[in-house]
């Protein structure tokens, strides 16, 4: 029994699932479900289809190089059954999975790092520019507590008087 990878989306194919397509040049394409199979028949490139692992790795959304991936490499030599080795392997699989998940979370956090600060800045800007969308200007003038504190700029007394005269 062997757990294969789907050619299109790179998810694992468990036994009893999926379709295997053999092309005449003897290249085998395995698909996990009909969604991937139909996309393949439409001749879509998995590197351009957003939800596949190929796209995510290519565009830096997911980790590409990590030592935890070395454990999952395909080995073609069959191992002689040894109970101890099997037990240890099963324990190791759990641990390696945990490590990989932690590293992926870290990668994701690093990717999203500047996002919170950026969002806050954008929100503040929107608040001062488009407050008229939320409350009418008349209401704002009557209740000064609703507006943001305005920054007072010192204007010379003479200029202020001139402005009043013009009005």
């Amino acid at each position, binding site marked *: 029994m062997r757990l294969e990878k789907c050619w299109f989306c790179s998810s694992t194919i468990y*036994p009893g*699932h*999926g*379709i*295997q*397509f*053999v*092309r005449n040049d*003897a290249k085998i394409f395995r698909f996990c479900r009909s969604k991937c199979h139909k996309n393949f028949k439409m001749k879509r490139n998995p590197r351009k289809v957003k939800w596949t692992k190929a796209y995510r790795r290519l565009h830096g959304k997911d980790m590409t190089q990590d030592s935890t991936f070395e454990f999952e490499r395909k080995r073609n030599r069959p191992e002689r059954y040894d109970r101890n080795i099997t037990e240890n392997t099963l324990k190791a699989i759990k641990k390696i999975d945990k490590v990989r998940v932690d590293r992926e979370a870290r990668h994701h956090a690093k990717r999203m790092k500047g996002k919170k600060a950026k969002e806050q800045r954008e929100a503040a800007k929107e608040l001062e520019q488009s407050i008229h969308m939320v409350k009418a200007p008349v209401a704002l003038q009557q209740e000064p507590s609703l507006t943001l504190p305005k920054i007072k700029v010192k204007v010379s007394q003479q200029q202020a008087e001139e402005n009043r005269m013009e009005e």
Partner: protein
Amino acid sequence: MAASFASKWFLAGRSLLGGLRNNSLGLLRTSQEMTCSDFLSQQRRTFIQMRTNLKVVDNSGAKRVMCIQALKGKKGARLGDTIIASVKEAQPGGKVKKGSVVYGVVVRAAMQRGCCDGSEVKFDDNAVVLVNKQGEPIGTRVFGPVPHELRKKKHVKILSLAEHIA
């Protein structure tokens, strides 16, 4: 008409209904279906039945063969079954001549066949290897990939001649 439109969408004739629908439309493929679904895979994925053209992938001399009877199977032959076929196109100096009736083993079928572990295999085209009545291949070489389902059907000779086992 409804049947033909329905079959355009259920192009992969997965269930047994695929064979029945094909039978109801007539044994020949309708050209209308082929033009409707030109961007999808062009192969009609159903059983191998009377009038099905198959490619010959050994060096027995024949090039194309038309199935005239599927031994075993009410709806048609699948991957690994034997058929009786008539040679439609042959190479000039081969062991079989045009118009002769031969037996063949289907080694590649566009229709998917379930493996014992539950997954399914399908190939790109319909191909056959000519055999004699006892099941031994007439040719001495087999081209292209063959499935290992043949081992269960006791076509070990063909497997041994194959260059790639899928």
